[in-house]
């Protein structure tokens, strides 16, 4: 119990002293995961719309497959990306292994199925009427797709946040393809893993608390955005 308290104190100290190593790892965690989630969203939005709006043979299977990938173990993605980008692998010539770039790629691979599946669910949650009305009013396929995304925006944004959350909290992939290089690929989770293995429980706890704090801030920002929009949104037609 005392250790937890000490960890909390240490976290506060680290934050207020702006410890450069911690700040850097925090910033790196944020930027790598944010980039990966944005890339994943950029892939998942059009692809999800495409899958949702079209009927094709094996659609159910494709969706179940995407849902299966929700539980993709991060170390498996790590292994896959490692083998692909290792110097003796097919993409080895780029020399990307053990760089932040490869961590972005790996996390994007990890998070894309999650956002994709949730985008499809989000679109499914929209009233059928919306789609039919849009088509009846002569919307092109493109306009209709955009309209549906707009209607489902809250659920889609939640999907993005979930994807970001999975990316920033994972450790196996970051360790395998990033290598936990101090000052280069070390992120909060890999630092926690290292400090725990070194037995510095306080510092591990402190870093964990910082990571949770970031998650809290992001979620507060999200709900603030949602609240604001509900204040503006109901504009009764008089």
């Amino acid at each position, binding site marked *: 119990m005392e250790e937890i308290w000490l960890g909390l104190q240490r976290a506060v100290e680290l934050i207020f002293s702006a410890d450069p190593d911690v700040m850097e790892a925090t910033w790196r965690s944020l930027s790598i995961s944010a980039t990966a989630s*944005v890339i994943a969203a950029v892939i998942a939005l059009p692809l999800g719309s495409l899958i949702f709006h079209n009927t094709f043979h094996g659609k159910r299977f494709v969706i179940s497959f995407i849902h299966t990938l929700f539980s993709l173990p991060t170390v498996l993605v790590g292994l896959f990306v490692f083998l692909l980008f290792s110097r003796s692998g097919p993409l080895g010539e780029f020399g990307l292994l053990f760089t932040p770039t490869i961590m972005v790629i790996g996390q994007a691979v990890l998070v894309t199925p999650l956002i994709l599946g949730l985008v499809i669910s989000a679109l499914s949650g929209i009233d059928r009427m919306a789609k039919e009305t849009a088509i009846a009013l002569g919307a092109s396929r493109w306009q209709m797709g955009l309209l549906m995304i707009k209607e489902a925006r809250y659920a889609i944004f939640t999907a993005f946040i979930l994807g970001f959350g999975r990316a920033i909290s994972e450790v196996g992939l970051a360790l395998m393809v990033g290598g936990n290089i101090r000052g280069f690929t070390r992120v909060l989770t890999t630092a926690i893993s290292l400090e725990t293995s070194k037995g510095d429980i306080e510092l591990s706890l402190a870093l964990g608390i910082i990571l949770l704090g970031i998650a809290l801030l992001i979620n507060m920002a999200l709900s603030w955005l949602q609240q604001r929009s509900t204040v503006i949104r109901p504009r009764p037609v008089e």
Partner: protein
Amino acid sequence: MNKTWLKISGLLLSMVLAASSIAGCNSSDNPSTTGPTVSPTTQQGSGILTPAKRLKVATTSSLYDTGLWALLEPMFEKEFGVEVDVLYANTGIALQYGQRGDVDIITVHDKARELQFIADGYGTTRSAFAYNYFVIVGPASDPLGLKGLSAEDAFKKLFASKTTKFVSRGDASGTHSKEQAIWKAAGFNYADVRSSGAWYVESGQGMGPTLQMAGQLQAYTLSDLGTFLAFKGQTGLASIVDKGSILLNVYAAIPVNPAKVAVSNKDMAQKMAEWLMSPAIQKVIGDYGVKDYGAPLFTPCAGNEPSS
């Protein structure tokens, strides 16, 4: 409605912009670790697909956990103006990284596998730069009374009693190799030892976590001296057996052979091997740990590797 949407996309966009500043242009901007020592040449051509030239070193965990690499890394960076990336692994993983060409040089401690690595053409030369000894460590009370025995006899007694636990790394590390060698020297078939009961615990983790596990279980384990000393305070374990030529632990640096594997920074790897063997750095290695542990963690041995 549109306003919110705009804000959300604005938020996303700013996240991307923020992120690309780090992930895109690699880490030419880490003030805390690289400081002013980075030479301008290492930053050239640093884009997403053409990363800057860096020297990648895969090291056995003992050289990392003891803090030796944390001391050497900035020294080398300063002298040669290159970014050094130290990958914390174990001997097995380091050799694997070397074979795949993912690192430029490895620093490990398993002579038999090192010689094989070179014989297979993956490494150029083996530079033995330091040594110390492995130790069998355990609860200070030494429940099995192993003190004073040879490593082989201590293992025989452990196996015979099967009461006090023994924690094995079980991870193909240099220490795990050494443990297997001791079992063999003691006349056991390693496969039999592994399957002989619950007293034999495989941690599957690095030396530090393994020592902590041994401390929690009040068990014996085999450790390199440096990591044991670094973790002694946390684990409460004591050194039980520390004598015998079988416990010799030699650390060597091997640049990955550019003729066999496509490495990225072969010249710098060769320079690092030479640098580790240089008198000045040998002295740094020999002095390391005296301040914190009262005795050096490593004995420098450039040019005359001990055989016992």
